[in-house]
């Protein structure tokens, strides 16, 4: 009814092979105009980490828990005492650091991804209801947001982990719990402005139901905010998970995660600094790349986030 014919949608409208070529060219032009060098590097770095992590079984030179007692605390391959059998060195029981980083990355990224999606769905839904229904429901949901944001989250996580134990589902739950208030707040703010927009008023006037208005008219307008928030929260969750694993309430050994590897390596800082430093570098590459991409998405979509 109120479609706004913009340039990309005209391009996307063409079909067939010429259409695909035009679309590809338009995409390239758009990419060159909008993606800065830092953003391009971030995508590259992310791909270089994520692909080997996902296919850890193929890329990893050893098994993640394989012990080699003759090669304990071996330094990385490029040093005088190292061998390229263990490119990033070994830990105190001779396990390969590179292999454990790849397998640990699987856990860290899986927790981050799953928790991000759960938090996204819950937070968006609650924010949508809060902004659309208003009144007492809105007050109640925003009260919960306030309560949670008035707690240093890591302490709440410590309390939850003590009560429920530190299994993987609990960890995912804690991580998801940490993100929902951010989604709820931002989504509610967008919905409040959408309430007054012509297409929502029009739909209401012709008898559009609440569910129809929320899903057909509001949700598509929330997608860019959701994308930006999901990217930013992914980085935050990876940091949180590593922090919890570091405190000993996250992923339990011998399953590797970046956080518990750094934690284990801490005792060997003087004689085997690579043990703690290598997984730390992997972690920082991912969080920096995700952060750069998140900021970039926020700038090009003009979404306001609360932090």
């Amino acid at each position, binding site marked *: 009814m109120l479609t706004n014919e913009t340039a990309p949608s005209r391009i996307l409208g063409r079909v067939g092979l010429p259409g695909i070529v035009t679309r590809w060219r338009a995409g390239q032009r758009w990419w060159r105009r909008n993606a800065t060098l*830092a953003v391009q590097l971030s995508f590259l770095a992310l791909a270089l980490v994520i692909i080997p992590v996902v296919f850890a079984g193929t890329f990893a030179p050893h098994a993640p828990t394989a012990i080699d007692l003759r090669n304990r605390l071996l330094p990385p391959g490029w040093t005088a005492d190292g061998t390229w059998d263990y490119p990033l060195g070994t830990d105190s029981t001779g396990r390969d650091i590179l292999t454990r980083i790849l397998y640990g990355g699987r856990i860290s990224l899986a927790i981050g991804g799953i928790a991000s999606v759960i938090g996204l769905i819950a937070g968006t839904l609650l924010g949508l209801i809060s902004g659309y229904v208003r009144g007492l429901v809105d007050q109640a949901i925003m*009260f*919960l947001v*306030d*309560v949670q*944001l*008035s*707690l*240093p*989250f*890591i*302490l*709440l996580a*410590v*309390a*939850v*982990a*003590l*009560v*429920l134990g530190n299994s993987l589902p609990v960890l995912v739950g804690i991580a998801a719990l940490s993100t929902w208030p951010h989604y709820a707040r931002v989504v509610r703010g967008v919905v409040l402005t959408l309430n007054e927009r012509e297409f929502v008023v029009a739909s209401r006037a012709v008898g559009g139901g609440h569910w129809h208005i929320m899903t057909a008219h509001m949700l598509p307008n929330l997608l860019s905010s959701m994308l930006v928030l999901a990217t930013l929260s992914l*980085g935050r969750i990876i*940091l949180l998970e*590593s*922090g919890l694993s*570091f*405190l*000993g*309430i996250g992923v339990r050994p011998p399953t590797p995660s970046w*956080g518990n590897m*750094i*934690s284990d390596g*801490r005792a060997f*800082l*003087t004689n085997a*600094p690579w043990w*703690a*430093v290598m997984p*730390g570098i992997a*972690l*920082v590459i991912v*969080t*920096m790349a995700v*952060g*750069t991409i998140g*900021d970039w998405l926020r700038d090009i979509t003009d979404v306001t986030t609360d*932090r």
Partner: protein
Amino acid sequence: MNTFSIRLIRTLLTLWGVLTLTFFLGRLKGDPVSLMLPITAPLEDFERMRAQMGLDQPLLVQYWVYLSDVLRGDLGQSIAYNRPVAEVIAERIPATLELGIPALLLSTALSIPLGVLSAVKRNRPIDRLIMSLSLTGHSIPNFFIGIVLILLFSVQLGWAPSFGRGTPAHLILPILTLTIYPLAFLIRLTRSSMLDVLHQTYISTARAKGLKERQVVFVHALRNALIPVITIIGIQVASIIAGSAIVETVFSWPGMGWLAVRSIGARDYPVIQGIVLMSAFAFSVTNLAVDLIYVVIDPRIRE
């Protein structure tokens, strides 16, 4: 003053919410005693402890007793120390403040000039440099910052001790570690707030009047740009409390955060509950104070 009393009521409500949350969290798995005693403890111990803690009472009665105890300043009994929780926590507060207050001051004092510089030199090399450093500070987990600092300044250079508390030298690395995250965050905030203000019409007016750029930036722009920055300092308190749990663990610094982490191993739920409450209280009070300052410095919201 009406806005302020509304804020006060909201703060009290939020604190009540936190109290309720921690109470029911402790009873989520039924019996908190099972959280505190090892599974191998004899049955009589369980019974004795239940009676001692009033757990044979109905849940709502327990809740009521808990609320009134907390209002009287009684946070319960620590399992590991066998002393009142309030006492155990109070002993740890000075150590936490020793790190937290310098970190808060340092991050605020450094971030404002850096943020202003970044905004004024927007898109120049110096802005790019400051912003990438800020992004880096934002992306490194603070325990890893601590480890890298230990590696650099204790292991390699031997300039500062890596753990423990005692001499002023012990303060350097933990304070530095605790400062980086809020610093990175505040730089970004000051920059964006400053950029917003620099686009306002009164800035163009000030420039048109022929004022020096220095005066425009520091007199006209900065004063207004600092308003949102001040409100965020309240949030910084939360991030420093949260950060101290990890930083104190890295440096074996015997503060509140260290106590919280130690209490996990000892299954000392009352202590963790007390620390959560204390942090929420500190955070809420700071935010209330910030709101009060906000009303004083920004005449627009006084009516």
